[in-house]
């Protein structure tokens, strides 16, 4: 007879077009039939008689099916399913990209570069420091993570790290950084110097990840007796200043 209950419920719900709703309504009807059967059995009927009476009390499965079809709204069910699938399909890659971005952000924040970007011929770095000076403007954060010089070559190397959002890369800003040192020497920006042979910052390259850019500079003919070097960015009213103290570093060329 359970089998009859099941058949009756399936017939009564066959016109519900949205399948998940059909299953739910079918289960509710089954529960109702079983409750009614149990009540009748408590009143003294046999199981078969109680099931028969419960089915008769529900009426025609065909009529129930027609009534349910009339009140059911499948469009919301289909919309719900589609939006749910789309949301999950979009959320997974979004979460993945966010995790990757945060991971690379943290990785770059804590990693020690140790001048691994300096070409082999400049390995005679005999003064090294990690200034960790920073400044920010326009939602962009600039930090000097490494600095050092080679007395043999009179060259100064430094790395500026910038963290910014959204995920866009641009190098033009670094062409506008200029510098002065404690001896009053002026080092022109890449943009200002152009091809002229004047003391200047020179780009050595860059690396990037999701939200971090590392920009590498070298200053030729650097005065190694300077106590500090100050980097400036001052275009269109901005004022980014990064002062590198050259008195507290390591003279052995290691971090």
């Amino acid at each position: 007879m359970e089998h009859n209950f099941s058949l009756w419920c399936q017939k009564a719900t066959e016109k519900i077009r949205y399948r998940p709703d059909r299953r739910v309504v079918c289960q509710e009807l089954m529960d109702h039939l079983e409750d009614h059967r149990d009540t009748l059995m408590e009143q003294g009927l046999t199981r078969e008689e109680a099931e028969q009476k419960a089915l008769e009390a529900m009426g025609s499965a065909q009529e129930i099916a027609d009534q349910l079809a009339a009140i059911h709204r499948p469009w919301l069910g289909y919309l719900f399913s589609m939006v749910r699938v789309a949301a999950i399909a979009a959320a997974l890659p979004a979460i993945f990209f966010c995790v990757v971005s945060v991971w690379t952000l943290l990785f770059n924040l804590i990693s020690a570069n140790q001048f691994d970007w300096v070409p082999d011929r400049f390995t005679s770095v005999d003064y090294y420091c990690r200034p960790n000076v920073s400044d920010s403007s326009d939602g962009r954060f600039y930090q000097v993570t490494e600095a050092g010089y080679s007395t043999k070559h009179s060259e100064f190397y430094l790395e500026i790290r910038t963290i910014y959002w959204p995920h866009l890369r641009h190098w033009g800003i670094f062409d506008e950084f200029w510098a002065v040192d404690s001896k009053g020497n002026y080092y022109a920006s890449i943009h200002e110097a152009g091809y002229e042979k004047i003391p200047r910052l020179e780009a050595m390259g860059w690396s990037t990840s999701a939200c971090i850019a590392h920009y590498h500079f070298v200053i030729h003919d650097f005065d190694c007796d300077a106590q500090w070097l100050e980097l400036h960015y001052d275009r269109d009213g901005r004022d980014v200043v990064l002062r590198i103290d050259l008195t507290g570093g390591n003279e052995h060329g290691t971090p």
Partner: protein
Amino acid sequence: MEHRKRLRKTLVYFLVLAVSVIAIYFLCGGKSLNAEMAFRRQEKLNMIGPAHIMDVLDYEEDRYDHLLIGQSQYGYTFFEWNDQNPDDGVLNYQPKQEGATLYCTKYSYNAMDYQQAYLPIFAFSDHYAARAKLTLTTNMDGEAIQYVLEAQRSEAGYFLFRWKTDVLRSADFWQIQQLITGEYNNYVLDSSAQAMLELFDSKGELTETYHFTK
């Protein structure tokens, strides 16, 4: 009740979908939806502005279709882009100088038509003037040449001088570019180029004169 619960859930999922799509768009370096968005993005990348947009010119250079002119607190911005991909546009910045500021583009306008091609030179003044005259002096191998250009004030408030390039020597072109924008060109051997900007009021009276030298 079930209907309302489903409706609420649908809206929540829709919100999740919208936020995820936007996040993916930006995390992947999403393309600008229009030229102004590309311009504002370039401003942020270059740490310039935000500029007030003065004008947009149709710019028939072989690389770019349009030129946007903006004014920020300390300078002027020039954004050149083509319709296919505004994100490939180039932003240039010219700091304001006291009294008057000049700017010229790197490439000539209407360059496809040699007879019509000209180098646009923009002039901005702190004081109102109805008309302006720009005298350019270039030197090559000791030979000085003068070019005199005139322009009326545009509705946006700047002067646009059209320096016809079909009569120029290449060195003149580069000397003036170097003078005005400071862009070094290693073909420039002589840095004695000069520019003189004269401003006139609506009656034709000379009101201001500015000299520009290297």
